[in-house]
């Protein structure tokens, strides 16, 4: 029985080319178009402060896709993704302020700078694995923070303000900032997501997964694991650099505090909670963590105002790291495949509906 191009209740693929399609059915294509259509309408209904959170989620999603490329798809632990974001942010800021480049050129320059530095930082991955590589990326995070802090060109970590952007005659001012940037970040996110889906179906993308699963077996099949690992770092850092450039413009100024170790940990948490090695997980992880942050923030305020604990016991402050830590531990224990697995299961349920799952 030939597979329907509209729906598929099972796997009817008979050729490798069918495995490599981005969209298996028309319904997948249509649902993505509908989703993007709905997302385009979102700013019209969301309050301004919530729109800011959505923008943050989208920027973090770009960075988490990058982290997923190195850690999720290639299996190289990276604890320095915020530093790669920072490289992109500072490169973007310099391109915008020193070279007076427009944002649509400055941000890709940030991506390229991230990729360049990422390639260099990825070199130890030729020799190091697992925790040792994690320490190497952690070292880069520390070196980055120290380097920026001691470079007068980068304001020693102080603020480098970015110029306001203008798109099709509309200038991003204080009052429409979130609105304008929503419509700039969303296409970038969609393009970056599709780009990765495209890369993943090429031999280069599949080689990353092969190296993750067993690098010796991959080498036996003719894949150069070293090249694959360096490429993973390069692409992952490119994504981080783009995210950094977007974040720099979105925050209106670059300051070192936005690219510290805690942000790297947060990005890693987003990737784990979302589901390592999953594109939908790269969107769901940031969504979960940002929403959790808002909920915990509100709860912290409430606890702080109630004086429930004796003086000296700052339970409100403890709540945030506690909740984040707990979320990561619970996901690792009970759902190591992250929210992406829930997404997969719910899709599967509706795919076979009304038949029993």
């Amino acid at each position, binding site marked *: 029985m030939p597979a329907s191009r509209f729906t598929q209740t099972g796997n009817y693929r008979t050729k490798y080319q069918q495995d490599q399609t981005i969209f298996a059915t028309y319904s997948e294509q249509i649902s993505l178009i509908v989703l993007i259509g709905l997302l385009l309408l979102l700013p019209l209904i969301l309050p301004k402060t919530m729109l*800011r959170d959505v923008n943050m989620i989208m920027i973090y999603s770009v960075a988490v896709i990058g982290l997923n490329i190195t850690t999720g798809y290639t299996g190289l632990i990276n604890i320095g993704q915020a530093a790669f974001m920072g490289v992109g942010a500072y490169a973007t800021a310099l391109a915008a302020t020193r070279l007076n480049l427009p944002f649509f050129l400055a941000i890709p320059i940030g991506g390229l700078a991230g990729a360049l530095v990422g390639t260099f930082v990825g070199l130890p991955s030729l020799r190091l694995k697992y925790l040792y590589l994690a320490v190497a990326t952690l070292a880069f995070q520390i070196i980055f923070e120290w380097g920026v802090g001691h470079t007068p060109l980068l304001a020693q970590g102080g*603020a480098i303000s970015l110029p306001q952007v203008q798109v099709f005659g509309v200038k991003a001012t204080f009052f429409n900032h979130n609105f304008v940037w929503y419509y700039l970040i969303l296409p970038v996110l969609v393009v970056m997501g599709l780009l990765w889906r495209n890369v993943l179906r090429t031999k280069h993308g599949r080689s990353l997964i092969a190296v993750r699963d067993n690098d010796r077996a991959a080498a036996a099949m003719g894949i150069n694991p070293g090249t694959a690992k360096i490429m993973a770092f390069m692409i992952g850092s490119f994504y981080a650099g783009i995210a950094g450039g977007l974040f720099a413009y979105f925050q209106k100024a670059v*300051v070192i505090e936005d690219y510290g170790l805690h942000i790297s940990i947060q990005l890693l948490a987003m990737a784990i909670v979302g589901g390592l090695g999953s594109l939908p997980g790269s969107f769901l992880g940031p969504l979960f963590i940002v929403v959790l942050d808002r909920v915990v923030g509100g709860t912290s305020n409430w606890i702080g105002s109630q004086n429930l604990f004796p003086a000296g016991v700052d339970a409100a402050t403890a709540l945030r790291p506690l909740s984040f830590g707990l979320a990561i531990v619970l996901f690792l224990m009970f759902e190591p495949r992250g929210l992406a697995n829930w997404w997969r299961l719910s899709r599967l349920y509706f795919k076979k509906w009304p038949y029993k799952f």
Partner: protein
Amino acid sequence: MNKTLMLSALVSLSFAAAQKTVTLPWSGAITGPTSDAGASYAAGVEDYCKYANAQKMLPGITLNCVTRDDQYNNANTQRNFEDFVANLNAPVFLGYATGGALQLKSVIQETKIPTLTASYHIGIIDAPDNTYTFLPVSSYSENIVALLEYIAKKERGAKVALIVNPSPFGRDPVVDARKAATRLGLKITDVQEVGGNNLDNTALLKRLESQGAKYIINQNTAGPVANILKDAKRLNLLGKMQFMGAHYTGGEDLTKLAGDAAKDFIWATSYYLYDEGTQPGIILAKKIGAQFKRGADTIRSVHYTSGMLASAIAIEAMKRAGANPDAAGVYKGLISMNGSKSFNPGFAVGPVTFSAKDHIGAESLRLLQANATGNFKPITGAQRSALFQLVHPVK
């Protein structure tokens, strides 16, 4: 009876309608990093604001006192700022962290919202984008230059080391300190960066000792400084080295953490302290703290007084703006605070003066030294650093 009720309801309604509500917002770290200072600061801002309402300081205006936690996260600070200005129409903004304030400068310039911060980083009021940013008291840089002047008076040619926080907050005064030291004939032997995870400072202190540094100036928060002092005591260096620090290094926060190791620590600050019970500002702070049932630790904290000063300056500026305190009016109110119109609520050791060019409020500061009981006692009167304006002219 019914007519009387209706009439009184109408009168009440018209009175309520005549009362205008203006938001006085603060965003800072009530939880998270530096919340030990931020929580007390927030309490000071909020309590003085409520006190102003109770005292009807602004005729016809009720203040909406909003203190919101940003968890020391710049993105949250921006989020709060957007909400305050775009949704609550706040005519003024009270900020907290250095990074958040630096990042907001271009937005503050664009929105023309006068801003007072709890960070006394001189870069906040340096050009560019500095028209609407103000420091309530003297900057960290001025604190440190004043300490260097004190050292030069005691011992010309002395060797001085700086220990600073590894952040813009910590590093910024180093340039001015170097310039001032050169002019004063002092030698800066080393600049070391120490963050909040300095559990063992033996190597650091031995290094400074080997360089012959006699005066150690800290630009940090109280926690790391307390750890350094405890290690210095363990290494028997307290008699050989004189430890000093800028505003956020000292006060009860330090003596609580460092115990008797804090003895003789010299602290530069512009604020009066809780123990100076005869000062009008401290009397008022105690009264307001008791009125709003704050804990003893909060009221004793210098950050409670600091929050009150920021709140008081903003409210005074609104008062000077008249019946319609918008951002432009508040700005005019702020820059009118000079000469005979300077503002002195009594929380700081000198009056608050601002002008279009002068964006530092209470410029006077004192040096205080911790005694054996953990109390800081003044060792100088209220003064301005003579050298600071030379090493850091208004930009």
